[in-house]
């Protein structure tokens, strides 16, 4: 029996699938809040690094605080997403929008993790690289969200 079939027959999968459909609705809501809390601070970092807003505010403060808040969003969306996946893994793996989303998610997670490598001083000295990095990270998360919205329609 492969991993996905094993997951589908697991206790957790049955519990989520058989629970009231409002449980899945609640997970969907948490998933949306997670995305907002992840993306909005990244947009703020982007605006600051691109010099479009908050130019006179300390980079360390904006980037540090935003990274911390976005991590809360990331954890909320990953947890709620994983629980939704556990409710019907066989159904999800057969969905091409889900496959696309997972591939994009892996890339987005790598980009996200790399954001933590930047020190404020390096952002100043390698401004162009920092801009390309944050714009790619935001673009990838937008693509992840768009692919995610398509899951229910394909």
């Amino acid at each position: 029996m492969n991993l996905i079939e094993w997951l589908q027959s697991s206790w957790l999968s049955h519990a989520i699938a058989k629970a009231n459909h409002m449980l899945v609705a609640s997970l969907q809501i948490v998933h949306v809040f997670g995305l907002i809390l992840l993306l909005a601070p990244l947009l703020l970092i982007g605006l600051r690094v691109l010099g479009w807003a908050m130019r006179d505010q300390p980079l360390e403060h904006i980037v540090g605080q935003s990274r911390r808040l976005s991590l809360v969003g990331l954890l909320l969306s990953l947890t709620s997403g994983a629980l939704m996946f556990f409710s019907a893994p066989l159904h999800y793996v057969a969905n091409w929008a889900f496959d696309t989303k997972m591939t994009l998610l892996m890339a987005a997670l790598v980009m996200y993790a790399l954001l933590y490598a930047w020190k404020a001083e390096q952002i100043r000295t390698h401004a162009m690289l920092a801009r390309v990095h944050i714009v790619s990270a935001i673009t990838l998360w937008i693509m992840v969200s768009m692919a995610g919205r398509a899951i229910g329609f394909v």
Partner: protein
Amino acid sequence: MNTLMSLAQSIEQSAIGTAIAEGRYAFPIIEGIHLIGLALGVGLIFLIDLRLIGVFLPSVPVRVLHRQLQPYVFLGFGIVIVAGVLLLVSETSTVIVSPPWPFKAMFFVLASANALYFEFVIARRAGALPERGPLPKPVRYAGIASLALWALVIICGRLIPYIPHWT
């Protein structure tokens, strides 16, 4: 209710309504855009609210955060509203009978009124607020109210497909 329903059906049967409903990917793409606009518009409002409450960017003055983010908040709301209207036009008769919809509309009106109050009353006094550290209690409550009202708009919106009828 019948007049409302026939009006809803005629909106839905308009050229744009049928184009979105019948296009294979139009609906999910517009939904995705609605979501991204939300992360920009409401997401940045959440950041300002968290600043008012005192848990985010405590050393950035409220007036700076508010003034600098304002154009992007407006851009985000422009996107959310245009995409939201298109979604509504494509399935008006399904959406208006769903119980969470009137609540979403009500919380949207309240959240907007709260935002206008912030814009025209609180933000104009923002120069008098302390630049750093905790803000006066009424200002913190305004942040909590905004956060709660926009959260309720999102919750009701996401519940529309899960609670399609009153009974």
